[in-house]
């Protein structure tokens, strides 16, 4: 199961990372590497678009938390785009919906 990751750097100062597929123990490292790479290249405001994600478990949550902490440490932030109830539920039951800013659309996310 491959994880699709598309990066759109055309919405400066935001970098939009669109994720497709299933985020689990097998695929989450690919997302982690991408977030680390973006932070090391100077990205500060990263939006992770989860609308194409079919499944996400705690391994994926861990990668998103790690990315957010890394970016906040660089005076940036990581926000999310998600409207799918099944994915939102994972954030809700762990309380992490309060830690992340979750937008309904990418446009809303890059509007600040």
């Amino acid at each position, binding site marked *: 199961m491959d994880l699709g990751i598309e990066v759109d750097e055309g919405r400066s100062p935001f970098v939009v990372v669109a994720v497709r597929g299933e985020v*689990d*123990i097998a695929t989450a490292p690919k997302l982690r590497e991408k977030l680390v790479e973006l932070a090391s290249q100077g990205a500060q405001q990263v939006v992770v678009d989860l609308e194409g994600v079919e499944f996400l478990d*705690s391994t994926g949550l*861990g990668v998103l938390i*790690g990315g957010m902490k890394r970016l906040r440490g660089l005076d940036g932030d990581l926000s999310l785009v998600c409207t799918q109830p099944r994915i939102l539920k994972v954030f809700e*039951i762990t309380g992490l919906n*309060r830690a992340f800013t979750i937008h309904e659309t990418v446009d809303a996310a890059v509007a600040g």
Partner: protein
Amino acid sequence: MRRSTQPSPADAVLESPESVLRLEIPPRAEFVAVARLVVSTAAKSRRSLADDKVADLTLALSEACTNAIEAHDAKDEADRVRIRVDEDDARLVVTVQDQGPGFDLMELPTHPAVTDPDRLNFERGLGIPIIRNLVDEVTFTSDSGGTTVTMILNCPPSSGGLTADAVELEEFNEMDLEAAWDDEVAP
């Protein structure tokens, strides 16, 4: 084909369990997606479950398998994570058994409240709270021979006979998963 003759962790919680599925996977990350697919198919075909309950079970299973694989830490390629699905009239029981070193349940970290900024220091260890939230009952037993997670959903059997999904499941039960993997995926 029924496989009720071998003892199962489900025997402790079901009065007359019937085996729905047995699956052994190598303790490697790429097999978790396969386990999710097979177990969710089994649950849908055998029980009357709303889609969101199937999704809950699938997520709980993924967490249990992830913990099992991390417990093995690729120590021995011959090790297996054993997944079983059993049922009776009232319940579906999914067990995930690893051969890892086990852990002390009393030593699991307690997560800070969600409003506490320190909560973000817990990138890991979210799996067990997620499992507890998603299934009706869960028990963990652990010793030096490994850990068993037993997850129970209260749900009636599906009405009618075997669905197409269930027939596929019977066929799947006959497959040698690792051989199939090697044939189809490995270079």
